[in-house]
């Protein structure tokens, strides 16, 4: 099954009397367990495309199908449920809850999803173990290093057993070595769980982890960088 399918997706923002086309007729298919890197300069539309894929934004036109469900026409309530059950996010600025421990930052996903508490706790512990954070479970984000925080964010993205993980600039705040480590962890988690992933990055050094690299410039998606 295709994890993500975009068909001629377009996103237009109004600006005064004019329009800004953030994404222009983008079509894309991401298979199960496939990792796609989305590369492009700042303002090219990669974050917008990621937001549309994850149900954070609705497209102005086109069709978005995630794990077999066409979410293009979903209302905000259905999109909330969709995000809760089907996708996982790793945000560029990590965005951990500062007063929750590493473990609680994972459990908060289950809390909002009203999932079984015992199963959720076991899953959080397993994810933290896999991410090498078993000794840091009880630490608050302020007590963790940048790499550790990013790993917690990765764990949180996998808490709801998603079909698709959307990752925004995972290495932007890390040095090359830490960035490599985090990318390896992400790839391992994605592969182990047969989950599809779209990774937005402007860091060309990290793209070798992906099965496929797509380029986006001025909202237009292509297999090769546009000259």
């Amino acid at each position, binding site marked *: 099954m295709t994890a993500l399918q975009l068909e001629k997706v377009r996103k237009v923002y109004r600006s005064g009397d004019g329009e800004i086309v953030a994404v222009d007729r983008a079509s894309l298919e991401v298979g199960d367990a496939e990792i796609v890197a989305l590369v492009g300069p700042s303002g090219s539309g990669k974050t917008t495309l990621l937001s549309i894929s994850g149900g954070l934004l609705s497209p102005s036109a086109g069709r978005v199908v995630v794990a077999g469900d066409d979410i293009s026409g979903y209302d905000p309530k259905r999109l909330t449920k969709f*995000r*809760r059950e089907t996708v996982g996010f790793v945000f560029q600025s990590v*965005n951990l809850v500062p007063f929750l421990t590493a473990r609680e930052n994972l459990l908060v996903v289950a*809390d909002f999803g009203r999932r079984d508490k015992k199963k959720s706790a076991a899953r959080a512990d397993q994810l933290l173990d896999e991410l090498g954070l078993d000794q840091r479970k009880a630490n608050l984000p302020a007590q963790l290093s940048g790499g550790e925080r990013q790993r917690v964010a990765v764990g949180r993205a996998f808490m*709801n057993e998603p079909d698709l993980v959307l990752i925004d600039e995972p290495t932007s705040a890390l040095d090359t070595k830490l960035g490599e480590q985090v990318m390896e962890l992400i790839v391992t988690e994605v592969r182990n769980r047969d989950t599809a992933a779209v990774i937005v990055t402007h860091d060309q050094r990290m793209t070798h982890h992906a099965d496929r690299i797509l380029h986006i410039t001025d909202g237009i998606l292509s297999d090769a960088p546009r000259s």
Partner: protein
Amino acid sequence: MKVALLELRRRPWRFAPAVIALVLLTVLLLILGGLLDGLYSGFTGALRAQPGELLAYAADARLSVLRSRIDAATAAEVERAPGVAQVGVLGTALLGATVPGQVTEASVALFGYQLAPHGVPAPPSQAGKVYADTSLKAHGVKEGQTLLLGPKRYPVSVVGWVSGTNFLLQGGLWGNVDTWREVLASARPDLMLAAGTYQVLTVSTAAGADPARVAAAIDVATGGTTYTVTRSFAVDALPGIKQQRSTFNAIIDMTFVVAALVVALFFVLLILERTGMYAVFKAIGASSGQLVSQVVLQAIVIAALSFVLGAMLALAVGAVIPPEVPLELTVGRAIEVALGLIVMATLGSGLSLRRVVRIDPATAIS
């Protein structure tokens, strides 16, 4: 796991401004309520304690116990009226009392009674013996003491205590009708009443009788020389009682509104600060309803905590307030304030609903 409760536990200082404001408002609400209750009790206790459902005044007395005069013939007509089960006479005199060892006089309301009011024993058999209201302890009155009443220093000895029986903010003294008549003759010979004449009748109605119908029947039976009302009507007719209650209640209601506004303003500012965090929560699947319920839960916990701290502070304030201030801190008033604060906190925090709904989850990723 409740994120809201964990935040309260781990970042209590963040909620300190709201807690401080609500603690002060709680103290204000409890003190205002305590003063209202104290004033109400001090003004009306003697009438509210009367055993009969009805009080019969002279028709021309305009519901004033002090002006009212009911003679023996009228009292007999009242007793014969349909629906009347029992009639007792009541007389009062407002006086100054010299307390042994005290420089200042205590203001007292001496009552002569036949039917024992609630919480008051049967009248002492001997003249010159009285039960004193416990509020007079603040004026140095002790059991066994002899108080000297009025300008002629009529002596009465205190043989026991009663409570909640004050009248017009004067400490209640309860003796038999002979004591009252002798004191009145001693202190105000100009107001001396004829034998068999009293001020007010307290009337118990027969089982199942409608008090309003019985009151009307009494006034018909006496040919319109009496004006008979229910006890609660008589209480409300005391001068200034309604105005006092409505003024205090208006201030208390406004204070509750201020509490709601404090909570609303605090959480609006807190939500502005938390926009990023809430956007992330929404991005990972939290609904607006779940986030608002977290805000409301925090508001309720803050209100409950503030009430506990405020109640402790109010008790401390009550302990240092001079005894002549009629402050009465009651459990009923405390429950009312606690529930009111929680309701206002819920309403105040609920005002943040619109702001939470408007947070765009897409901002978590942009």
